[in-house]
Structures are given as C-alpha cells and as structure tokens.
C-alpha cells in the first residue's frame, strides 16, 4: 500500500512505487491519482524534445543543475522507445544524469513507450500530474528522440523546448512540420560545432515566414471540433503573441545554459500571465479532461473486450458472417455504459 502522506512528503520509495503502478496500469494507482489531484497545479512542467542525438539528456542534466542551484526540487521523466518486436526496452537516459544520482532533491525516472506513439508513454500525463501533486517544483519531461510528428509533449508541458544540433544535414527541413510549431524555445545545442549560426538563421527565417500565416477560423461545426480534440494535431494552447526564442547552448560545457533558463523563465511568466485568462484556463481544463476521458474510454473498452472476454463472441459472430464489424463495435460501445 502507498500512503498519501508518504507521497506528499516525496518519499522516494512511495514515489517510485506509484510511478510503477501508473506505468503498469494498476487500478490502485487511479485511486491515488484522484486523491492527489487537488494538490497538483503548482509545478512547472517543461518538455524537452528533438531529434535523436541532439543532446537532450545532457541538456536535462545541465538544467537539473541550474534549478537545483536556484533551490528548486526537480523531477525528471525520461522516455525511451520500446522495441516493437520484443516489447522490451533499454532505458539509457540516466547515463548522462549520473551526477545527480545521490541528490535527494532530484528524482529521475525512466519510462518505455510500450507501443505508444507521439513521443511519450501513454501514462506520462498521469505520471507528471502525480509528481506535480507530490510537490516537485520543476518537472522535466524528456521525450523519445522524435522526427516530425511526435508532438504530444506540447499538450502536457507548460514550456516546450525543441532541441537540435547543427550539422545534422538539412535539419530545419526535417523538422519544419509539427515539431517546429510546438517550440516555445528552440535550443541549438552543440553550438561549438560548425553551422550553428546557420541553423539559428534558418530558424529565424522559418519563424518569420510562419508568423504571417494565421490559423483559419474553425467554421466546420462541432464534429470537426471533436475530431480535432481527439485525433490532434491540436491547436496550440499557449500565451498569446509569444514569439519562440532561439538559444544557443553547448550542453557538455554548460555554455549558454543561463540564457536558456532565462528564456524559459520568460515563457513561464507569459504562461502564468495567460493563466489569469478564464478562457485560457478553461481551454486547458477541457483539453486535460478530453485526454483523460479518451484513455478512460479505451481502458474500459479494453477491459470489457479482453478481461470479460466479449471479444470471443464477437469474433464468432463475425466468423459466422451474421453481421459486420461496424455494428458490433457500436454495440460494444453501448454496452460500456452499463459497466
């Protein structure tokens, strides 16, 4: 059993155990999430995403240091991919964060995606909410190394960093869709390498082009709204008028990290300002609820089909050719309401 008091006191063992329960989808974890919810909402959630090899883990290591120096406690959620074949994973993000292994003001936890796409694990949002409620000041979420479409982090983080390194080919081209649009701060890491300034210039150009394209008013009625809410890409929810900052860093030496923290804090301030707007806040609550609703529905549906074994009858019916899968899917969904 895990006590709420132990969690609120940030006892490592309890913390770690809850993370495991959440990751493994145990029903007990949900009970605790409900109890923790009223305590959440104080932490600053920072997402760190970018191409594989851009230096995300090393940067996280440096950021931990900076926030610790400012007297803040830091939790890190590091996500690595699961093998699609064996479903196993090697989680190696900690290798670069070892200097904080013995610091009790730092909690680092590695997660495997377990088949979830989007750059996070399916339970990352719950994990982050739980850490928030436990009272960690800053929560750094490092996504898997992403390409273009893995933008889920922006729905979770208050401030999103997109990290890239120069000299990785036509890097801006590669990230122009999706990931380029989610950055609050661009980090051109490994800036001691050739081409860093070019990367910065290309980013600036890309941003200037991008800002002239206004998002069209959504006049397509609520069905398309539902589609947007569920399937993404979501509209960006952030402080109005924020222009993404571009910062150069050298993760290994720590060069540029102060500038990065400064840019992050500027965004945090803008975000907190935006939070005073009732509509913004409601939009966040709406998004959070829809995400939890989607997962709850999926979980219920899965348990109805698999644990209660209704899938067997369904396959038999399909095999008998009596009806079509669309009708059966609708029937299964109606049956969920009675759970």
């Amino acid at each position, binding site marked *: 059993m895990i006590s709420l008091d132990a969690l609120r006191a940030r006892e490592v063992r309890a913390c770690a155990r809850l993370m495991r329960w959440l990751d493994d989808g145990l029903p007990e974890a949900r009970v605790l999430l409900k109890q923790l919810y009223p305590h959440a909402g104080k932490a600053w959630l920072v997402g760190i995403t970018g191409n594989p090899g851009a230096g995300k883990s090393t940067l996280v290591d440096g950021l931990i240091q900076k926030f610790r120096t400012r007297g803040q406690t830091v939790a890190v959620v590091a996500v690595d991919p699961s093998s699609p074949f064996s479903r196993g*994973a*090697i*989680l*190696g993000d900690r290798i670069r964060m*070892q200097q904080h292994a013995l610091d009790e003001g730092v909690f680092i*936890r590695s997660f495997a995606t*377990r088949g979830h796409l989007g750059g996070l694990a399916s339970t990352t949002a719950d994990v982050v909410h739980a850490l928030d409620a436990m009272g960690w000041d800053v929560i750094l979420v490092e996504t898997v190394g992403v390409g273009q479409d893995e933008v889920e982090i922006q729905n979770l983080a208050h401030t999103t960093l997109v990290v890239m390194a120069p000299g990785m080919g036509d890097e801006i081209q590669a990230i122009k869709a999706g990931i380029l649009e989610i950055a609050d701060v661009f980090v051109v890491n490994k800036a001691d390498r050739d081409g860093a300034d070019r990367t910065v210039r290309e980013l600036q150009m890309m941003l200037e082009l991008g800002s002239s394209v206004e998002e069209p008013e959504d006049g397509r009625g609520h069905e398309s709204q539902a589609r947007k809410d569920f399937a993404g890409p979501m509209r960006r929810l952030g402080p109005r008028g924020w222009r993404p900052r571009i910062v150069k860093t050298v993760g290994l030496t720590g060069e540029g990290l102060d500038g990065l923290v400064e840019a992050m804090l500027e965004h945090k301030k803008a975000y907190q300002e935006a939070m005073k707007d009732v509509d913004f806040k409601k939009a966040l609550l709406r998004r959070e609820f829809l995400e939890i609703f989607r997962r709850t529905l999926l979980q219920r549906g899965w348990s109805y089909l698999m644990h209660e074994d209704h899938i067997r009858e369904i396959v038999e019916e399909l095999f008998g050719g009596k009806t079509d899968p669309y009708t059966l899917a609708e029937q299964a969904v109606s049956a969920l309401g009675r759970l």
Partner: protein
Amino acid sequence: MTEQRKLRILIAKPGLDGHDRGAKVVARSLRDAGMEVIYTGLHQTPEMIVATAIQEDVDAVGLSIMSGAHNVLMPAVVEGLRQKGGGDIVVFGGGIIPDDDIPRLREQGVHQIFTPGTSTENIVKWIRENIKPR
C-alpha cells in the same frame, strides 16, 4: 493500454573497470526477452546504484564487475538496498569472479553469479524463473 506488468531490471557497472561489453550484451538480451532494462553506464558507486534502483523501482539489479572488487562492491549494493527499504530487490552479478568467492557472495545476499561462458539464454531463463514484477 490496460494492466501490463513488466520486469524492470537495472544493469549497472560498479567500480573502476571500463569493460562494459558484457553489461551491454546482457542488457540487450534482456530487452530482446521483453524486459525493460535501465542502464546507467560506467563507474557507479554502490550508493548511486542503490539510489537508481529505488527511484526506478526495479525488480532486480544485475552487477557486472571485471575489476576483482566484487567481494566488496556486490555486498555493498545488497546492504545499501536493505538500508534504503529495497531489501526485496534481487541482486545478481556477473563478470570475472573466481568460483571460490561465489558461496560467500551468495551468503551475503547476492542471489546468483554468472561467470564467463554463461549463455545469455541462461541468464534470461534464470531471471524469468526467479524474478517476478512486484
């Protein structure tokens, strides 16, 4: 999706030797067997390994030691885990370890020792039989 228990194993290299090929091969075999492996790199102190094992809530810790310091380092990890409330985390080890040392290591709470020549299949099999997700 819904409930899915997975074995989580920490593979760690305590001490000063820089030979991590064995640790990496084992980490990979465990991954290929469907486990989640946390790998922390070289030159870990027992304290760091204990802290990582607790934070990551692993089911077992595998220690790879080639330096000859196994008689000190392996019991130190077992004892550290016990002190930090992780006494239920299984510790096993591998590396260049003389047969004569093995009984004493076992007495001190190291559950199993794999010496050179052990197949990765055997390691996977032993883990599957002896370690369950907690």
